[in-house]
């Protein structure tokens, strides 16, 4: 009887540690250890989750899982689609309803209040949950439990990050959420702030004349890009209708699909322009394959509708910016100064 009581006590303690994510002690080391997140100069405060604080162990686990096909039954991992060379973006995805959606990059998401083009996700931890579905990882629950439990490293890594001693004490949903927490901890550390423009702004780096001229177009009424894509995030983290469409069918309805407000028809979350050179195709539906096409859209292809952003309807520029050929070239050159090679080469 006494042994049963002790056993029950031990089991209860383990469960409590799992539920409360209490620091774990292994060989005299306390886990997990808080991650020292550095906010780059001039950046706003990041968004963290109180129920998923950044820890060294969580970030390390998430980084490993991000590139590991152990999560899938088809050999895919996050990095199969979110390729480093493309700033962790993915060209596009065809939805079950046939809509084509370009997948935004995993870059500076820690500064975003919500996610996806229409803001359908408001908690970053929920963003990877859909990846377990048949159209992506096609994860098999039994296989996932088995593989993780029998892996030479993951039992220890999950223990250190989340205090999990036995995967089988978790439900499948709990296991997926724990994996998502680890992935998101890693994603929150994916910060880009070392582009050529950053070095120019903060460290005395140089721009070419063409890039400098493009910067003028960007940050003046000529191009008027700055109102939505201001420094340093190059996104205002708001929703706008930039004049891509004047009819809003399917995914083109944008934010309206979430809010159902007529005033949100055709509005999309402003994407960051950091690493834009690497993240083609462009716009929510990936309709443009080059930056030149994007600039030409703003130059001559804007379509009017009742929700078009007021900034897009300046007098004399109702259908576009009417830039000169050189201004368009220089604007593209400037956009390429937002490429952060250290971000995509970091190990």
């Amino acid at each position, binding site marked *: 009887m006494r042994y049963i009581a002790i056993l029950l006590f031990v089991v209860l303690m383990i469960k409590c540690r799992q539920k409360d994510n209490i620091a774990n002690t292994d060989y005299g080391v306390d886990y997990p250890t808080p991650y020292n997140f550095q906010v780059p100069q001039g950046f706003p405060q990041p968004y963290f989750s109180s129920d998923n604080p950044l820890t060294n162990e969580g970030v390390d686990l998430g980084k490993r899982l991000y590139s590991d096909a152990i999560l899938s039954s088809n050999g895919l991992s996050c990095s199969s689609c979110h390729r480093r060379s493309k700033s962790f973006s993915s060209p596009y995805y065809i939805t079950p309803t046939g809509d084509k959606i370009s997948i935004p990059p995993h870059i500076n998401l820690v500064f975003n209040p919500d996610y996806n083009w229409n803001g359908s996700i408001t908690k970053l931890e929920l963003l990877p949950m859909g990846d377990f579905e048949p159209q992506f990882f096609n994860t098999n629950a039994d296989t996932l439990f088995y593989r993780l439990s029998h892996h030479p490293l993951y039992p220890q890594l999950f223990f250190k990050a989340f205090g999990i001693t036995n995967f089988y004490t978790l439900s499948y949903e709990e296991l997926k959420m724990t994996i998502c927490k680890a992935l998101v901890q890693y994603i929150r550390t994916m910060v880009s702030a070392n582009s050529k423009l950053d070095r120019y702004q903060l460290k005395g780096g140089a721009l070419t004349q063409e890039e400098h001229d493009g910067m*003028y177009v960007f940050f003046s009424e000529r191009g008027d890009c700055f109102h939505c894509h201001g420094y340093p995030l190059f996104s205002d983290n708001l929703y706008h209708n930039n004049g891509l469409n004047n009819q809003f069918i399917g995914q083109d309805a944008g934010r309206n699909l979430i809010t159902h407000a007529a005033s949100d028809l055709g509005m999309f979350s402003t994407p960051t322009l950091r690493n834009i050179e690497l993240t083609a195709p462009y716009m929510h539906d990936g309709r443009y394959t080059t930056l030149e096409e994007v600039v030409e859209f703003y130059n001559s292809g804007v379509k009017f509708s009742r929700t078009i*952003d007021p900034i897009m309807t300046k007098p004399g520029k109702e259908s576009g910016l009417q830039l000169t050929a050189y201004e368009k070239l220089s604007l593209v050159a400037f956009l390429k100064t937002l490429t952060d090679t250290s971000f995509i080469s970091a190990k």
Partner: protein
Amino acid sequence: MSFNVNGVPLRVDTIQFRNLSGNSFSITRLDFYISNIEITSVTGAIYKSTKFFYVSARDTSTYHFTVNGLPLTGITSFRCCIGLSASQNISNSLTPTQANLNMAWPDNMGGGYHFLKLEGHYIASNLQVYGYAMHLGKNQNLVEITLSTPLYESQVSNGIKLAMDVAKWYNAPAKIDLNNTNYTMGIDSLMAKLSQNGKNVLSITN
């Protein structure tokens, strides 16, 4: 702080309001700074605040702001500015909150911050829907407002209630017709008109 258009409570995103020029318009965005608050008490003492406050009509959490050291007596006048004083209106000088970052005024165009972003749609004379963007910035366009509304001590015990009539940005002394003037940023003559009109947009409703 509260918002109305010709006395009707502000409702964003719907074209339901009219200005003196007869334009039917909506408001999709109304963001601004309030600064340089100065209160004169019935004793003649003047209380000045160096604080500034970001207000967004879409975000009710910005409607309330606190100035310490207010007189506990009644007041004879209330002064404030819409915008930032020259010492505050310097690029990258404000804490980089998303709101402040979104109000940045490019260095190419003089630097500092937008004092005001008032945007929306209107029905143009050709009956098409267009956008308008009334943006105000640059030190010379700071909107200085004096409200000589005496308030008894009992009336200010719960604070001072400010109301902005958004239509007044268009009405006087410069009557603005959105068909002719729907974008102001960087156009000094238009921003000067907007700044003058701004002197009339606030009232005390205690």
